[in-house]
Each structure stands twice: as C-alpha cells, then as structure tokens.
C-alpha cells in the first residue's frame, strides 16, 4: 500500500499560483520565499532554501502539469523517480521563484523536465518520471532486490 504525493499540503508552502501555457507544453508554479519555518534552521543567520525543498517544488509543478494535461488526479501518482537533479545557484529569501515543468506523455510513460528559475536565470533543474501504483510496485520490488543483493554482498 502506498500513499500519494499530497498536493494539498505541499501547497501550504508553495501556494497555488499556477499558470499553464496556452500551447499546453509548460506549467509554471511561482512562489516568493521569505518566512518559511525551515529557513530558521537552514541556516541560522544565513537562510538558504534547501535543495530538497526546491526538488519538492519541481515535483509539485510536474503534478500540476499532469493533472492539467490528463484531467486525472494527482493522487494517482504514487512514486517519483528522478534521473538527475542539479542545484547551480542558491535560492535566498526574497527571491521570486518560478518552478517550470515540461511534461512528456508517451503511452503510459509520464516524464518531464523541471527547472527553478529566477528571472531568466536557472538555479536548479531535474529530470523526472511520475509513477502510478503499478509502476511504484515494480520499483519497490527492484529496490528490495537491490537491498537483498547488498546485504548478501555484505555477508559474503
């Protein structure tokens, strides 16, 4: 049994300012960071938005793109696979950030690229796959097998 990515509660941080391009090719979620509680701890005296928070913003933008493009519920997405993510420049309080996602739908495969933009400057990017319940079960089985192989290797 798996859970969904909780779009409603991710919105508590990232808000709901979402714009879909007229041609349907991109979805942009915008947010101004400033008073989020995590900035108190990351880091005291010199706040920087953590990379994992930026990753969640990119995932949320992808989920918005998925629901807009397909008309399906974001709750169908049970796992996310990220091929790679890179964080080039820091995001600081006061910056207005655009999480831009471009979704590719080919058959059952849901993939895409997302960027964290401040103006015209890209601060982070990721290449992602959204996985439904069936995909997620297969991935978990793969992870269990990897873990078993690792444990067996450790005991060899």
């Amino acid at each position, binding site marked *: 049994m798996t859970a969904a*990515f909780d779009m409603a509660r991710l919105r508590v941080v990232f808000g709901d300012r979402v714009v879909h391009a007229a041609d349907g090719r991109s979805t942009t979620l915008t947010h101004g960071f400033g008073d989020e509680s*995590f900035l108190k701890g990351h880091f005291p005296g010199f706040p920087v938005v953590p990379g*994992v928070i930026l990753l969640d913003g990119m995932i949320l933008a992808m989920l918005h793109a998925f629901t807009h493009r397909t008309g399906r519920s974001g709750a169908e997405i049970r796992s996310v696979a*990220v091929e790679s993510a890179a964080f080039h420049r820091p995001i600081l309080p006061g910056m207005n950030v655009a999480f831009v996602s471009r979704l590719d739908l080919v058959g059952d495969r849901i993939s895409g690229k997302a960027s964290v933009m401040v103006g015209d400057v890209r601060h982070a990017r990721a290449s992602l796959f959204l996985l439904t319940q069936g995909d997620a079960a297969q991935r978990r089985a793969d992870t269990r097998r990897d873990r078993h192989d690792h444990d067996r290797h450790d005991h060899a």
Partner: protein
Amino acid sequence: MTDIMAGIRDTTWAAPFVYVDRIIHMDRRTAVALTVFNAGKDRFGYDGFASPSLLIECMAQLSLALIRHSDPEVEIGVIPSLRDIVMTPPHADAFQAAIRVIWEDGDYPRYAFAGAAFVMDEPVCKARLDILATRRAA
C-alpha cells in the same frame, strides 16, 4: 573519533531542519540512523506531510556525519546534485524511518554517497547524493 553521534553535534543546520535523531551504526564507509516523523513543530514537514524529499535531507545530514567522523574539521556540506532517486510517500503522518548511507567514492571536498530509507522495513526512498564539503576557517 569513536563517538558516532559527534558528527551531528554543533552542526550549522538547526531545528526545525534537523533530520537525524539517532545514529545506531557507523563504520568507515557506512552509517545507519533512525528518525521519527510525527508532524511535530520541532521538525519541518508540509503541514504534517513528510515528503520523501525530506528523507533525502536526512541522508545528506547523515552523510555529513560520516564525513565528520573521519574529518572533524569539516563544517558544512551542500548538495550540488542528486541522481537515481526513487521515492514513495510513507502512508502515515507519524512513522520512524531507518536511513542508511554508504560512502561510495570521493574525498574532501567532493564525496559520492548512496542512500536508502525504510519505513516498517519497506523501502520508501533511495538516492545517490553528491556532497560538497567545506572545512572550518582556520
């Protein structure tokens, strides 16, 4: 250094962005920790939702603890890149996660770690992390 908790003391990060409760194993290349998520205000979550990305932060903080175990002068680490992530949200708001990181490659200042997180013995997140570390100013 023999105190396996030393690497998560006097860190540059602080509540509510602390994601390692207890390190239960550490050797030269592997560390294992336990962390409780219970929607408490002392630990950031999305209104109680522990996104699995926060488990990656847990892996990063544990990786830095392992680095500091062998190099106490290391003060801070950032994540320039992540790879091969697969993550599934845990199905409860309150849970204990077991986190394991393996130091796969690299040396100061750039390291490569493989991390995995388990809840109730089920894998919920795995990732490869690059960590870029900085030592304390002399």
